[in-house]
């Protein structure tokens, strides 16, 4: 194993290694970050939710967005799978339907980065309790 030769090298190492722990660091305070829940019930997975989630995670890294991705069960919008719920801190969560890779990019770039609404919002038809 190579020796760490200076403090600068140690800090560079930290930068490089940080991504491995990023998921843990982020979940320490998820409320302060954008949270995306991907519905991963049978119908969601069958319509490609898994691939979309992968794609979004990679895209978010590319755009340097700190987002907490979680998988959830069925949200009940089987007609519009894959569905995702996006919660931006300080705002009400919004559910998007029929999310494919293209729509996912649009959500990340337009809604999350620029606060522009994009099409495909499913009106919430129920309330949840915490």
């Amino acid at each position: 194993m190579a020796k760490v030769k200076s403090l600068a090298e140690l800090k560079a190492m930290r930068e490089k290694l940080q991504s491995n722990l990023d998921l843990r660091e982020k979940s320490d305070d998820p409320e302060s970050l954008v949270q995306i829940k991907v519905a991963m019930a049978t119908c969601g997975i069958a319509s490609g939710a898994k691939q979309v989630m992968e794609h979004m995670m990679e895209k978010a890294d590319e755009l340097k967005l700190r987002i907490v991705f979680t998988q959830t069960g069925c949200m009940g919008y089987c007609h519009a799978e894959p569905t995702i719920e996006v919660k931006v801190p300080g705002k009400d969560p919004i559910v998007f339907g029929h999310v494919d890779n293209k729509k996912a990019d649009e959500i990340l770039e337009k809604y999350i980065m620029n606060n522009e609404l994009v099409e495909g919002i499913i009106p919430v038809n129920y309330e949840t309790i915490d």
Partner: protein
Amino acid sequence: MTKIKTHVLCCGGTGCKASAGDEIINNFNAILKEKGLENEVQVIRTGCFGFCEKGPIVKMLPDNTFYTQVKPSDVRKIVEEHIVKGRKVTDLLYLDPENKQHVSDSKHMGFYKKQLRIALRNCGFINPEDIDECISRGGYEALGKVLTEMTPEQVIDEVTRSGLRGRGGAGFPTGVKWGLCAKNKADQKYVVCNADEGDPGAFMDRSIMEGDPHSVIEAMAICGYAIGATKGLVYIRAEYPLAIHRLQVAITQAREYGLLGQGILGTDFEFDIELRYGAGAFVCGEETALIHSMEGQRGEPTFKPPFPAVSGYLGKPTNVNNVETFANIPIIITKGAEWFSKIGSEKSKGTKVFALAGQINNVGLIEVPMGITLRDIIYEIGGGIKNGREFKAVQTGGPSGGCLTAKHLDTAIDYDNLVAAGSMMGSGGMVVMDETSCMVAIAKFYLEFTCEESCGKCSPCRIGNKRMLEILDKITKGNGTMHDLEELRNLATVIKDTALCGLGQTSPNPVLSTLDNFWDEYVEHVVDKKCRAGVCKQLMHYEIDPVKCIGCGACARVCPQNAISGEKKMAHYIDNLKCIKCGACYEKCKFGAISVK
């Protein structure tokens, strides 16, 4: 490439490991592989989460789901439900004892709400056997900072200004201690980490070494730089095999990265660490005894001065600090003395780790800011007394400490307030007692411990404690007199004043504080020959209520002494001459006919 979507943190502390923790981790890995998920889910063995009452703990990230009392057979369900389908396994969630609701996120659990984790910052978060995880949390950057940006004097000044005091018990200011050692010139000096955690029920140092060993190594190197030492020694008890293993792994990894050894981080600073094993004698937690034990001598204390800072290990200037003290150092250097000194009370800065034990709902390891009240610890974090019973006392400071009672519930916990209340911080054991605990028996328990562990060097401790134990024994057997109580107090005071080392001087504390706080209970034992808690067997007997007894004979069948007699369907009777007070009949009776008198 598939991305890791879930981290599964499994507790790998000694407690959870003993409850099949390893099997849980193996099952996770096997089942994830079977489902083809091994590249999406990462299973990490971490240090202690602290919530030992409900162990083994498995925490799922990123959604912070906290599964308690997980069995190896539950793993399949967690994988299939939580990981595959995104549904929580409700029956493994923590059940709030107050409102009987399941809590999924550990942040919403009373146990964690009031905690502030500084010394335990990485425990239950990183894999302690992977230095990379430690580095990605900023590990060794404090060492880098002191080596490149600070002079040894500045380091000592920073630690002094932070207000950090020794976490081993007495609370001596750490910066001052370092300063004393730094000013003594010698060809060799030593940094010693006191990991001889000996208080019954205390396990904070073990958990730190098991969960975040690098924080201790880094801090020892920082101390070495500050006082001018190139050698570090960890004195650890051999009963801590897992902590020893993790320390060894961490030391090896730190050497490979050049964070120990010669020319650390490209500077000309040199420092290395060795482990020394103790055989588990309580007195070896006292620093002079510890040093003698490391030298291969008998583990006996010697008179101070000379202090170890002048003449310690092999006669060289030596600085001894406790594990938890060291664990606070890196973060003080990184975040600064001002940050640290804002936490805690006026004279006690920072946080303290306590091992919460006894008759309390949430047994475990907690870290709280100094100055928190006992009430917050017991009722908020600890979840109250078991089985809805009444709080009676809490013993802090182990065999050197004393008892706090209901009147101290709102006292702010810090070094000075505990001493004022007749107890002490000690290393941080906190044993909670309810009305089923007899305070005389508790004092006797701690004194028995001291008598067994007394090194025998000075007579006040060796003989004095023995005589006190005899008096206590007499009292619990119903033969005590009021004169005995007087003698007990006299003897205790003399031992306190005359014993050689800190352990001897504090050994009468459990007796003195129970005499002060529970005088009535002592008097009851002596005058009324009664033990209200029903603990002292010679002072109680069982009785069958002839009205409630239906004569089923169940009690007679379980009695090992055949002390219970009676006709079928008629009230039974206990022969107190034969009865050994084992309580088997009391447990067996379904009709509440047997009572303790």
